[in-house]
C-alpha cells in the first residue's frame, strides 16, 4: 500500500487559562484600544446574557439560548469581520451580532416572540438567527458565491456548533465551498455539547477540524476561550477567503457554561465537576488577566465598565419592553412581495380576531 495523501490538524493557543501568553502574541494584541474594545464587547455579551436569562425567568422573553462561555469565539471573529462581510449566525451569536451593530432590543424582540427584531440594524445583508441546525452553513456558502460572482473582495462567515457537524447540510456546505472555492469561513464552536449529547457521542472524529479534510479545505483548531487565538487565526482565514484563497474551517474549542437554553436543565446530563473545571478555562477571566498584565487594567476600570454596560443593557431592555405591540395583520404583510388576493381576504378575517394573550 502506498500513501497517496497526508493531512495534519493544527491547534493554536496564545493565552493559557490564566491569561499567560504561551508565546509571542500577534501584533494586534499590543494595541490597547483594540484589545479594550474586544474586552468591552465580551463583557457586554456576558452582561446582556445574564439579563436575558432574568427576563426569561420573569416571563418577559420566551425560551432563550445563552452564549455564556462563547464570548471569545464570537468577539474574536466579529472583530476581524468587515461590514461588507456577511454573517450567518446560529441562534447563539448574540455577541457577534451586537458587535456588528444589531441593537440588543432587537435581539430581545426575537427571543420575545416578535419577528420585527430580525429587521435589525447592523449590516442589513447579514442573516438572521438560524434555528434549524447547520442549514445556515449553506446560506453562507450561497452568499459567498454571490460575493464571488460580483467580484467583491468580501467573505461570508458561518457559525455553527459541534452538534451541527453531524448534519448533512454542514458537509454539503463544506464540500460546495471547496468545490467552488468560495470565500467563506466556517467557525465551528465546539462547546462540547449539543443539548445533552457530548461531542464524543456525536462523532468518532477526534477533532471537528478534520471534517474539513472531507471537503478538501483547510481545517484547524483554535482555543475558543482565547480571544487572541480566535482573532488571529480568523483574521488569516478571512483574509485568505477575501483574496480568492478559498474557504476554511476553524474549530473553536470552548464550553457551554450555561444550560442549553432556558428550557433545559443541564444538571440532568453533565457532572458539576466538569462544569467547575470549565469555569477555570472560561474566556472572560483570561481576557481580563491579559488586560491587567499588558495594559494595567484596574479593578476600578472593571467596575466602571460593568456599570456602564449594565446601564447600556438596561436601556435596551427598556426599549424592548416599551415597543408597541405587534398586530395580527403584520403576519400577512411580509409573506409575499405581491400579496395574493386569497391572503388579503384572510387578513380581513384576522383583523376581527386580534391575538389574545402574549400579543
Amino acid at each position, binding site marked *: 500500500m502506498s500513501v497517496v495523501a497526508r493531512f495534519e490538524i493544527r491547534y493554536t493557543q496564545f493565552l493559557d487559562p490564566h491569561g499567560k501568553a504561551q508565546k509571542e502574541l500577534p501584533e494586534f494584541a499590543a494595541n490597547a484600544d483594540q484589545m479594550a474594545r474586544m474586552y468591552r464587547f465580551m463583557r457586554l455579551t456576558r452582561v446582556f446574557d445574564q439579563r436575558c436569562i432574568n427576563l426569561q425567568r420573569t416571563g418577559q422573553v420566551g425560551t432563550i439560548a445563552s452564549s455564556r462561555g462563547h464570548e471569545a469565539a464570537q468577539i474574536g471573529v466579529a472583530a476581524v469581520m468587515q461590514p461588507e462581510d456577511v454573517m450567518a449566525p446560529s441562534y447563539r451569536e448574540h455577541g457577534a451580532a451586537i458587535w456588528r451593530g444589531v441593537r440588543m432590543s432587537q435581539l430581545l424582540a426575537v427571543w420575545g416572540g416578535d419577528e420585527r427584531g430580525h429587521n435589525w440594524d447592523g449590516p442589513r445583508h447579514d442573516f438572521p438567527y438560524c*434555528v434549524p441546525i447547520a442549514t445556515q452553513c449553506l446560506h453562507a456558502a450561497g452568499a459567498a458565491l454571490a460575493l464571488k460572482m460580483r467580484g467583491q473582495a468580501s467573505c461570508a462567515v458561518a457559525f455553527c456548533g459541534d452538534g451541527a457537524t453531524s448534519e448533512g447540510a454542514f458537509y454539503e456546505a463544506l464540500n460546495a465551498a471547496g468545490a467552488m472555492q468560495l470565500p467563506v469561513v466556517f467557525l465551528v464552536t465546539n462547546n462540547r455539547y449539543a*443539548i445533552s449529547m457530548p461531542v464524543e457521542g*456525536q462523532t468518532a472524529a477526534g477533532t471537528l477540524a478534520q471534517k474539513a479534510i472531507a471537503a478538501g479545505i483547510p481545517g484547524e483548531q483554535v482555543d475558543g476561550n482565547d480571544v487572541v487565538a480566535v482573532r488571529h487565526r480568523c483574521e488569516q482565514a478571512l483574509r485568505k477567503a477575501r483574496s480568492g484563497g478559498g474557504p476554511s474551517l476553524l474549530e473553536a474549542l470552548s464550553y457551554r457554561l450555561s444550560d442549553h437554553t432556558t428550557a433545559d436543565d443541564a444538571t440532568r446530563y453533565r457532572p458539576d465537576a466538569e462544569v467547575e473545571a470549565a469555569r477555570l478555562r472560561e474566556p472572560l477571566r483570561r481576557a481580563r488577566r491579559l488586560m491587567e498584565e499588558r495594559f494595567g487594567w484596574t479593578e476600578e476600570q472593571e467596575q466602571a465598565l460593568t456599570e456602564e454596560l449594565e446601564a447600556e443593557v438596561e436601556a435596551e431592555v427598556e426599549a424592548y419592553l416599551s415597543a408597541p*405591540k405587534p398586530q395580527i395583520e403584520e403576519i400577512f404583510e411580509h409573506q409575499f412581495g405581491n400579496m395574493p388576493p386569497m391572503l388579503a381576504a384572510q387578513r380581513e378575517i384576522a383583523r376581527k380576531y*386580534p391575538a389574545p394573550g402574549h400579543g
Partner: protein
Amino acid sequence: MSNLTLVEAVNQALAWEMAHDDSVVVFGEDVGVNGGVFRATDGLQERFGAARVFDTPLAEAMIAGLAVGMASQGLKPVPEIQFMGFIYPALDQIISHASRLRNRTRGRLTCPMVLRAPFGTGIRAPEHHSESTEALFAHMPGVRVVIPSSPVRAYGLLLSAIRDPDPVVFLEPKRVYRAFRQEVPDNGEGLPLDHAFVTRPGTDLTLISWGASALETWNAAGELAGEGIDCEVIDLATVSPLDKETILESVSRTGRAVIVHEAAVSGGVGAEIAAVLASEGLYSLEAPVMRVGGYDTVPPLARLEYGYIPSVQRIKDAVREVVEA
C-alpha cells in the same frame, strides 16, 4: 401511576411495548440520558438499557434512514424527531423509502417504524417549534399519520402504531402534552388505527378536528351547547388514510360540517375532508363546509401565535355562520 398527562401516556405506551416486544428500539436526539426534551422517553434508558434506548448524532435524515434500515431487518424502530419543525431533512427517507419499501419489493422487505414528533404551537419557543405540517405526510401513499389528542388515545394509538406493520408518523400535540390528565390503565390495549373517534354526539353540525385544536373545538362545542347548538365532535386521530365512513355518516345526520386545525388552511388535511364531503357527501350538505385553520402564513412567533391558530371564538363564529346558512 395511571392518572396521566398525554406525554406521560406516551411514555407509558413506549415502556409497555418495549417490555413486551424485544424488537422495539427507541432513539433520537436527547432521548436517552436526558429522557427527551419533553420527557417523553424519561426513564426508558435506565429501564431498558442504552442498547435499546439511545441518543443519536444530530441528523434527522440519518435518524429516519437508520430506522428504515433497522425496520427492514426485522426491528421495530420508534425514533423521535425533537420537533416537527426539524422533520424535513427526514422527509426524503420517509417518502422515498419508508413508504415504499414494502411495495417496491412486493412485500419482501417491510418498514414497521413509528416516527414520533411533537408538533403544533403553544410553548413560546423560538421559530420552527410550532409547525403543524401533517398534510405533507398525509399526502404520502404508504404512510399512516396518527395524532392523539388525549392521554387515553395517545396510549392506545401509539401501541397500535408500533404494532402496525407499516410506517406511522405519530404527531404529538405539545400544547396538550400537559394540558390535562386522564386515567390511562396500563393494560397494553391498543386503539384502532384508520378510525375517527366521535367524542361527543350531536345533531346540528359536525365539528372535526385533531391534535391541539381538539381542545378549542371541544370547548367551543361546550359553549355552543349553551346557546342551543348541538355539535357532534369528531377527533380524527388517524389523519391519513382518512376514515371517510365516520365522517360521512355523521354529516349525513347533521348536514353541516366545520373542520378545525392549527395548520395553514390551504392544502391542509381539512381540504381533503371537505373534498370528501363535496364528492361523497354532497347530497347531505345543507350548508357550506367551513374550515377554520391557521392562516396561510408562516406560523408567527410567540406573541402572535394565539392570533394565528383557531380560537374558541373563531370556531364558534364559524359554527354559527354555518348553522345559520
